[in-house]
């Protein structure tokens, strides 16, 4: 679990750096000029994807609504701003987010619906009751067992995963009891 998380975090960092070095998509820059009402011309906004050096009123405002001698007066009132964004970053972020959300939803469906059904089919009803007993932390020696048993090594990989998952489920169950049932933490 820890290594998965580290991989996740590293991938986040990578895309942060990627967003810096990706070649600028030509669609991702724009110059936005806001021109207020002038005489009887209404307020307008002009967008064009030009680069920073061309981001001024003369290049962006097309077609120019006023004639030759008024152009300067009109352009003086206009405010031009250069903006850029990174659509790749947005795309990658949304895809990462939706994939993690999808995985979590699948895992949730598995945990709540499929696993009890599978267990019931494989082991029968009696096993279900046994697997649900949890070790409360009221016993004085219970935590001591946990602490001391951590030092034992488990050679089997599958056993390790199974054991870790059982421990995690117990922890979540304890947390759920504290928060939702006894209302002890996090009112």
């Amino acid at each position, binding site marked *: 679990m820890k290594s998965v998380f580290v991989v996740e975090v590293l991938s986040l960092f990578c895309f942060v750096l990627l967003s810096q070095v990706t070649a600028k998509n030509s669609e991702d820059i724009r110059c936005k000029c806001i021109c*207020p009402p002038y005489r*009887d011309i209404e*307020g307008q906004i*002009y967008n064009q994807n030009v680069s920073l050096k061309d981001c001024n009123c003369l290049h962006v405002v097309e077609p120019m609504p006023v004639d030759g001698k008024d152009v300067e007066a009109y352009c003086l009132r206009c405010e031009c701003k250069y903006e850029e964004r990174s659509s790749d*970053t947005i*795309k990658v972020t949304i895809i990462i987010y939706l994939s993690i959300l999808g995985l979590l939803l699948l895992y949730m469906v598995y945990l709540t619906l499929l696993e009890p059904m599978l267990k019931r089919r494989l082991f029968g009803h009696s096993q279900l009751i046994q697997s649900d007993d949890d070790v409360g932390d009221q016993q004085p020696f219970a935590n001591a067992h946990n602490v*001391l048993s951590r030092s034992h090594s488990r050679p089997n990989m599958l056993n390790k995963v199974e054991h870790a998952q059982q421990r995690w489920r117990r*922890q*979540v169950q304890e947390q759920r009891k504290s928060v939702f049932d006894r209302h002890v933490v996090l009112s």
Partner: protein
Amino acid sequence: MEEEDAAADPYLPYDGGGDTIPLQEIPRRGSNYAMSNGGGVASSTTHLLDFLEEPIPGVGTYDDFHTIDWVREKCKDRERHRKINSKKKESAWEFTKSLYDAWSGWLVVTLTGLASGALAGLIDIAADWMNDLKEGVCLSAMWFNHEQCCWTSNETTFAERDKCLQWKSWAELILGQAEGPGSYIMNYFMYIYWALSFAFLAVCLVKVFAPYACGSGIPEIKTILSGFIIRGYLGKWTLMIKTITLVLAVASGLSLGKEGPLVHVACCCGNIFSYLFPKYSKNEAKKREVLSAASAAGVSVAFGAPIGGVLFSLEEVSYYFPLKTLWRSFFAALVAAFVLRSINPFGNSRLVLFYVEYHTPWYLFELIPFILLGVFGGLWGAFFIRANIAWCRRRKSTRFGKYPVLEVILVAAITAVVAFPNPYTRQNTSELIKELFTDCGPLESSQLCQYRSQMNGSKAFTDNPNRPAGPGVYSAMWQLCLALIFKIIMTIFTFGLKVPSGLFIPSMAIGAIAGRIVGIAVEQLAYYHHDWFLFKEWCEVGADCITPGLYAMVGAAACLGGVTRMTVSLVVIVFELTGGLEYIVPLMAAVMTSKWVGDAFGREGIYEAHIRLNGYPFLDAKEEFTHTTLAREVMRPRRSDPPLAVLTQDDLTVEELQGVINETSYNGFPVIVSKESQRLVGFALRRDITIAIENARRKQEGIMLNSRVYFTQHAPTLPADSPRPLKLRSILDMSPFTVTDHTPMEIVVDIFRKLGLRQCLVTHNGRLLGIITKKDILRHMAQMANQDPESIMFN
């Protein structure tokens, strides 16, 4: 040798005991050990092994929901530092190890800042997208929200700027038409559908995977930083679920914000990274330094205010804040802000959505409405705290709290149904705040800025003078009033739901709405009565006088200050948000007024109130203890209690010791010389004793139920056939803090606060009389304040 003679004398205070036996003393002692029970060669070797063995694993760790011992942790850290320093000169490898140790703090803080910034960027981008998903989709690129979809559109008029061909609302997609009553109802229906499904997903994920991910997180982080242990609260699953469900909760339109949860997310990152370095993973006190820096990074990315984040960590969240932490917090906040800026989520190189910059001046007479806004903020804060705590208490104790999923869905449904018709509540709260903060420029076509222009024809463009309000402004004011009432009511029920929920954005929204209304009212007053003395002095007809956007800002700061009772950090955060040094005086006036008005109703902010509601053992450093009680009135045992449970230093057997532990539920036991003399030797913790006994039974042979347990340096003389004695000296704390029974409680409370103690022993004429624990102090303070002393739940 003299060591042994000194050790045999029980009157000497120090003879080298403690948590860890210093390594260089072991060989000297081992060879001179006097064996006091019969034993052959086998037992002599095992006795040597006793000394040479590592400290018992697990001793020095803490149980869940218990308080740490700050003094012990700091001593452990100093010991570790001394060890590394003494080895530094031995070899180049040791030198690099010492360098690594010195720099690991900076490394943790940098990693925390990077992770916080990256996660905040992810949350911002995803929340923006999902928020607009309730409205429609962008057909050309599904991952764009409304604004990004129409980014490259060439529409020229301001009114049309949000319409572009690629963005389709749900009514357009499903029904095929964009306008008309049918499409309005379809949009309404789809809005409610998406809001409900996001809320349902969020609460299901929280319930199944990480129940600790709900709520704001700041009260629990405050308690953790003061020395409490909540295992799993800052873990990996909590981090992942909090990040994912925060986006869902914000997108579902509930009246909550993401700043408080971002602090929790940043602290989770800090906690996780601190496990990579043994300097921090093994020492709870050092870990809390990293958590202080992490919370500064969290606020920094939430608001785009690094300095405000550090001050928030100092003022609100942290308990002990040494100077080293200040520098590291600032560094973490800067790194996080830098990472967020380089991700550039909003496409305009600004960190936060509502960064406004205007430099219009304010006038002295405006201090009156600003102070009125401060009063409003304080009153609202006091009302909100009372109402929210009453509702949360009801949720905790009655059967309302048995159906969290149903509650979330109900609140989300009510919010969606009432919020859709009003355009000010339909939009994202951050966008609402930005709209309210922004002053009416020359080209605003929002309803708020539809003033009637005074001139006609020739001078259509006027430089924002005081103008009479057009009908658009009046209808906007009505809608804003309704939005204000709606938000005030819904936030009471939303804060504390079982989804990640923050409080900053809703409070700022309420304050901004109130401020803007007051600002427009003052502006109209200035226009229609420009011949009053006040306005004539400062305002000229036709010139810019009142900026309602500034009132919105001041209102937002006042409301946030009223509910959290922050002072300096709030002003700095708002000042960094807006970039205007000119507005410090109005902000401070409003924030101070709101704090005073709020304090008149109750001294606690919302976070302290939640701490008290949950019964966490948080000894507030801001409260003063002004009563004249003495230590003997607070200590246990009282007259009616059974006598103090003590251990004698070499009289007990393993069976008796286990009996004492099983029959009582105390966390620690004082160790005395003998029952006759009652002189204090030290203090032993329950957890350490149980772990040591388990360890001894597992690893040492010959320990039986009637083995003698001794806390002294040398075993007592035993008959020849008795089983091997068990030495528990290494777990004994030889320097417990003591006060006499006549010590005033003011001093005792001060000692507890400043040193971070868990318990303190009370002596009378040199003999042990009783014990005062942190829980006793909290109960006593609650009793003195006429609150329920039984509400303190944890140790």
